[in-house]
């Protein structure tokens, strides 16, 4: 038993750290520290910088551009990325569709899509949820009927993050109404430029455009864009959701933000003293640090323990606690900002250029509430808290 990093891992960490220090544009770093979200262009440009270095898809097999890093190296990489900070790789590309194609795709599909996924030449989005199918994902009804060399898709997807940026969507569609509901689902790749695809923005409580509805009206999809076998899409979905649960914890990001909060709390005044001297705030912050550290070690235990039946409950724990901590971080930013968080900064503009100069509030305070509001989604998406607890109780032999 030993929790220390090896000298090789420490060397790796400094290599990664200096790469980020030398490469992430200052303006982008500023933006992330201020709690603003990078725009499409910034994400793509950064992703391609990473890809040029060979680090865009480190978790993939070497043959498809991966790095052959150990799980610990991957964690170190993510931790340094969050600390820099640099934008994280686009999860839809790197953690979702890429691994699904590697595991289930045909050779032709891999050659056609993977290099473009890795370089973010194509921005992918995820077409799982439907208006009538949230947590009960397998009840989805978007239908694909076969007509010659095509599927013809009709239906609707919802809560699609960054569909407005996307070139492609991977979709779960129903291809059979005969079998058990899970057994009639297929995994289709759909070009967002196909005739019959309509994207409509969903106004959300944070006031920032990220979620969308997508309508499919007689959209023709060539059958070579089916992944795996027809009616075998549920396997792809389960595989993808399992990956998502582990990636979503993002402890490195939480730790980096907690450090930032502590540093800001030393500078932020509140009630005649600095916020770090407010006992309740300081305790909440320390409590979050403890839980983040515990979760980090829980994650190490999963990565080093090699999974297996003994560890079947770990992914749900990572998802539950990881998202809870992300929300805790967002709440701490709000608590730290106090009334400075109230004003709305106009979307798409630099905070400083909208309300900043008049109110003279720091940018991190002006973004605190929008991130807090948006952050509520974390415990709903990717299998809600309640679904994770259902899964956990099944691994415990309760049902």
């Amino acid at each position, binding site marked *: 038993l*030993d929790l220390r990093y090896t000298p090789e891992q420490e060397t790796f960490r400094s290599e990664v750290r200096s790469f980020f220090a030398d490469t992430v544009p200052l303006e982008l770093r500023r933006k992330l520290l201020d709690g603003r979200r990078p725009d499409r262009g910034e994400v793509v440009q950064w992703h391609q910088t990473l890809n040029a270095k060979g680090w865009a898809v480190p978790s993939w097999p070497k043959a498809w551009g991966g790095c052959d890093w150990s799980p610990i190296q991957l964690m170190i990489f993510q931790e340094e990325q969050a600390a820099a900070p640099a934008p994280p790789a686009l999860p839809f590309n790197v953690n979702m569709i890429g691994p699904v194609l590697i595991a289930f795709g045909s050779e032709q599909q891999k050659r056609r899509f993977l290099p473009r996924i890795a370089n973010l030449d194509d921005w992918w989005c995820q077409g799982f949820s439907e208006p009538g199918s949230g947590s009960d994902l397998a009840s989805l009804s978007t239908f694909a009927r076969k007509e010659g060399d095509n599927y013809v898709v009709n239906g609707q997807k919802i809560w699609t993050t960054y569909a407005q940026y996307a070139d492609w969507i991977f979709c779960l569609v129903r291809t059979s109404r005969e079998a058990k509901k899970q057994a009639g689902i297929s995994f289709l790749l759909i070009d967002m430029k196909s005739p019959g695809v309509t994207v409509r923005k969903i106004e959300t409580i944070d006031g920032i455009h990220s979620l969308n509805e997508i309508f499919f009206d007689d959209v023709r999809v060539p059958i070579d864009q089916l992944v795996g076998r027809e009616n075998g899409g549920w396997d792809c979905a389960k595989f993808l959701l399992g990956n998502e649960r582990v990636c979503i914890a993002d402890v490195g990001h939480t730790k980096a933000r*907690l450090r930032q909060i502590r540093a800001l709390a030393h500078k932020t005044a509140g009630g005649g003293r600095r916020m770090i001297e407010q006992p309740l705030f300081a305790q909440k912050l320390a409590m979050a640090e403890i839980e983040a550290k*515990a*979760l980090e070690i829980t994650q190490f235990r999963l990565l080093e323990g090699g999974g297996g039946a003994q560890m079947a409950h770990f992914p749900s724990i990572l998802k539950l606690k990881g998202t809870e901590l992300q929300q805790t971080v967002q709440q701490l930013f709000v608590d730290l900002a106090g009334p400075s968080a109230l004003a709305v900064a106009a979307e798409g503009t630099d905070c400083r250029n909208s309300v900043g100069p008049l109110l003279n509030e720091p940018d991190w305070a002006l973004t605190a509430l929008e991130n807090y509001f948006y952050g509520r989604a974390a415990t709903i998406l990717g299998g809600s808290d309640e679904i994770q607890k259902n899964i956990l109780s099944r691994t415990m032999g309760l*049902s």
Partner: protein
Amino acid sequence: MNFEFSAEQEMLKSEVERLLGNHHSFEQREFVSVEGWSSPVWALFAEMGLLGLNVAEENGGVGATPVETMIVMEGIGRHLAHDPFLPSAVLASTALSLARRSKSAARLLKDAAAGRTVLTLAHSERGTRYDLSHVTTTARKTQSGWLIEGSKSLVPYGARANFLVVSARMTGEISARDGIGLFIVPDSAEGLQRREHRLHDGSLSAELAFADVLVPNEDVLDVSGRGFDVIEGAYQVGIAALAAEAVGAMAAALDLTVEYLNVRRQFNVPIATFQSLQHRAAEMLLWLEQARSMALFGTLALVAEDIDQRWPILAAMKVQIGRSARFIGQSAIQLHGGIGMASEYPVGHYFRRLTAIDLLLGDADHHLATLVDAGGLLSAAG
């Protein structure tokens, strides 16, 4: 980074499990010997070398790492074993090992490792709460040795131990770190009064009064003025050991709860089919894994970090342990319903021990305040 036990540690784990499983069933718990614990188990502990884990080889011990202590303590927690392992084989043995060498200390360590003698650390006093340097008991130098005057409180197995390692103030203010001396006092010492009482977890404890108890020079352990360092080092090892015990007890309480949910029927179905109960059990598992992670972190910090660097990590660990213990203990009772309140059923005893563990060696609130004062965890521990 490596999360595997060595082959020897795996073996230790299964041997401890087998030993305690055979001898410490819940039904056997009340039938302990006059010493206040099960002497056959204690003898087997000695035979297996467990009582010498925190004793160097040159003193007849094993000189093991904190991981071995963790393994034993987790077993003790899982089986709710009542014995003086923590006060004798962990706290007092560590204190004796850390103190300046003396003949008496070497002899005591040898006897303790062999199971011939039981030790305890007599440090806490009324009003100490969790302030480790609060010592009002005094030590006065005389021609023939040192005279101890004062009292100690909540000393684990204090009326049963053969020898006490006693802290007493030689100089300085009541809460000063400097000026604390350490002395060995046998149970037969003149002027020593011991009053035994039982704690809510069922374990034995004592109030001790020292009326000019004479400690001859050969039993003086440390009068350099830095006795606090020894106490601090011993308590650090003890806190990690308690955390491991808590993990074992929490795991057992959760196992009992899951088993009960599957067996108990209401409304013609097993209550395990009710989602609100499933979800509470799922949360218990989450609290358990988080506690286990922190117990590992704290235990390994004893090896990896210097004494000062350890405090934020150990404080963080004890906060997590205290909170997890409370959530799991309370939930275990709630999910059992009425039977959880009954002494004849084991789950309540786990709850009582888990509650006591939070209150021993610094509760969650105390350690959270410590951590806040230290500037948080991440600045100290990445």
